[in-house]
């Protein structure tokens, strides 16, 4: 099912939950709504579900405006963060509830519930009470209940937040596989950008009720259109510096008290369009340690002191102080960096981002 949101807004007396959200979701696509808590992603989802009434704009399913359609008539299934299972019913009671409300034939209900339960790997738990299930099993029941009525649209509201890290990883893959296999259009609300990046075909990044960006994960990562997107997408987060763009001997240079880097011509030219002062963004993995074997080119290195080393397993996340400016970089563990070391950082300047400090829009990808 195709879903279109057109200037969708929701405001309570003074609080704005969603502010003119416009986006379209193609048939069979999984779209993630990503943002910090309180950014309006769940509000938007609940409007799509029909639980909240929009205060402005329209929601259309396959071209039909469904603003006034009751939740039960929208052909949707929803999975909640709290699972929202009915604790006074058995697993079978929970999964069969939507079908019982449709007054289907008893044999049909039994067959459908069994099919869905088998698909979710809980076929042998149908007689259990909800309280007897583990978190992962409860999540599967919730998913089964959403799927059993064969919805046109699946809505997920942070479905994995209550699971432990390991299980989250398994369920992530399982949900994605299920969704792709069944080809059901899905909206997936999450504050976990790894979840969004790995599962979604497209990600809608939201903050303060405003849609910040809506694109495929790779583009959001490589070409963030706003400062917020750059800072929110990616883990560990991007480093930001206030710099001035100057033209020295034909080269564009990003300069501040701590920083002096020569920029590639194309990026430098775009960055220079905003009257000098800009915000420079550098991802932690776009910086390397200088290697004696191959000395770096002039103007792409800075010298700093190691202040913190956080081992992440495969890599170390190293906090470096550069003349008073702090940044975090990912360093291969084999380099054996330790606190107090003086290190030479080599910047991959062709991946540096620039933002207008006033509008917070990207100067590169406007």
């Amino acid at each position: 099912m195709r879903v279109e949101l057109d200037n969708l807004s929701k405001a309570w007396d003074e609080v704005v939950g969603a502010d003119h959200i416009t986006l379209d979701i193609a048939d069979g696509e999984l779209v993630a709504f990503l943002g910090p808590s309180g950014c309006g992603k769940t509000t938007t989802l609940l409007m799509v579900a029909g639980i909240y009434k929009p205060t402005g704009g329209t929601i259309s399913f396959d071209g039909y405006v469904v603003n006034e359609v009751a939740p039960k008539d929208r052909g949707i299934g929803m999975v909640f963060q709290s699972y929202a299972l009915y604790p006074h019913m058995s697993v079978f009671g929970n999964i069969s509830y939507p079908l019982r409300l449709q007054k289907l034939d008893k044999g049909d209900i039994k067959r459908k519930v069994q099919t869905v339960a088998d698909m979710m790997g809980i076929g042998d738990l149908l007689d259990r009470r909800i309280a007897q299930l583990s978190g992962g099993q409860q999540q599967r029941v919730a998913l089964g209940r959403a799927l059993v009525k064969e919805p046109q649209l699946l809505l997920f509201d942070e479905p994995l937040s209550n699971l432990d890290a390991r299980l989250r990883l398994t369920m992530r893959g399982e949900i994605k596989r299920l969704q792709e296999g069944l080809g059901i259009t899905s909206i997936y609300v999450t504050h976990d950008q790894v979840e969004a990046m790995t599962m979604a075909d497209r990600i809608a990044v939201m903050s303060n009720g405003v849609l910040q960006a809506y694109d495929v994960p790779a583009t959001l990562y490589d070409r963030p259109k706003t400062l917020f997107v750059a800072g929110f997408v990616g883990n560990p987060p991007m480093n930001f510096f206030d710099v001035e763009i100057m033209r020295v001997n034909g080269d564009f240079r990003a300069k501040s008290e701590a920083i002096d880097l020569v920029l590639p011509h194309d990026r430098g030219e775009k960055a220079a369009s905003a009257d000098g002062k800009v915000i420079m963004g550098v991802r932690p993995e776009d910086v390397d340690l200088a290697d004696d074997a191959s000395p770096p080119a002039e103007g792409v290195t800075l010298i700093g002191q190691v202040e913190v080393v956080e081992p992440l397993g495969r890599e170390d996340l190293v906090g470096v102080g550069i003349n008073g400016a702090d940044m975090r970089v990912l360093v291969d563990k084999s380099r054996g960096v330790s606190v107090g070391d003086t290190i030479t950082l080599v910047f991959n300047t062709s991946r540096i981002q620039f933002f207008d400090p006033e509008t917070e829009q990207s100067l590169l990808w406007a």
Partner: protein
Amino acid sequence: MTTTEAAPPRHAAGPLPRAREKMGRRFAYAFLILSIIPILVGYAWLVIATVSFRTQGLLPINAEGGIGGFTLANWDFVFEGAIWSAMLNSLLIAVFMVIGVGIASTAGGYALSRMKFTGRKAFLTGTLVLHAFKAEMLLIAIFFVLRFLGDIPIIGDYIGFNTVGGVALVMVALELPLGIWLMKGFFDNLSWDMERAALIDGASRFRVWWQIMVPQVRPGIAALSLFTFIVGWNAYLVPFTFTIGTKVANMPVFLNQLISDTAPVNWNLVAAVGLFQMIPLIIFFIFTQELLLNIYAGGSKGT
């Protein structure tokens, strides 16, 4: 190392902590036992008095003034019709209250907890303020209302002045503010997600209430029912005011009639009737003890 060195001075100061703790516990028990003695003495008197000719303190006394004189004569009332009619009336009032207050509070509490409507806030503060009014202040006004209700053809015979139905109706009304607030609190504690899930699953709002939400507040309904039953069973002021004679008297009113007669009061009979009134409640408590503990501990084990 430093911790082991620091430990000895603490022990040297007095008895070992465990011994001290034991003594403290003994004190606590002694205090508790002392403070419940008056209550225990009261109950002991109640029981002893019902099987005695006369009592002096806790001692049963016979006609000659010596110790003894046990008798079952005080319990003769159980063979008379009046007590059973009073008991039936008490039961009717209590059951009617449990049903009326239960249904109205569960429905009203849900609406106030979950729905937006004009006057919701005024209603909430209104019920709270009304609850502050003692029933005594309303007696005269209620009398006129009951007289009016009694004039309604047919149903007036059941809910008017001097009827058990009328008394029950008034009692329900007086109990509702508390009931509604209590149930609202229980509904407030439920997550919205379950309700939303049910709406999406295809349930109507009424069905969501009845099939999904009400089962979650069963402990609350149980607590309210119990509380209401006790209030109804022990109701005195309203039945006393709005009933005349023995036909519609409930247990407390019947008890009062024993005392207010002009003849000298037979306190041993009064004690026996009082104990008799307590028996159903005691049995009730014995059987629901575990459930009650669950409810008051705030657990949802009851579901």
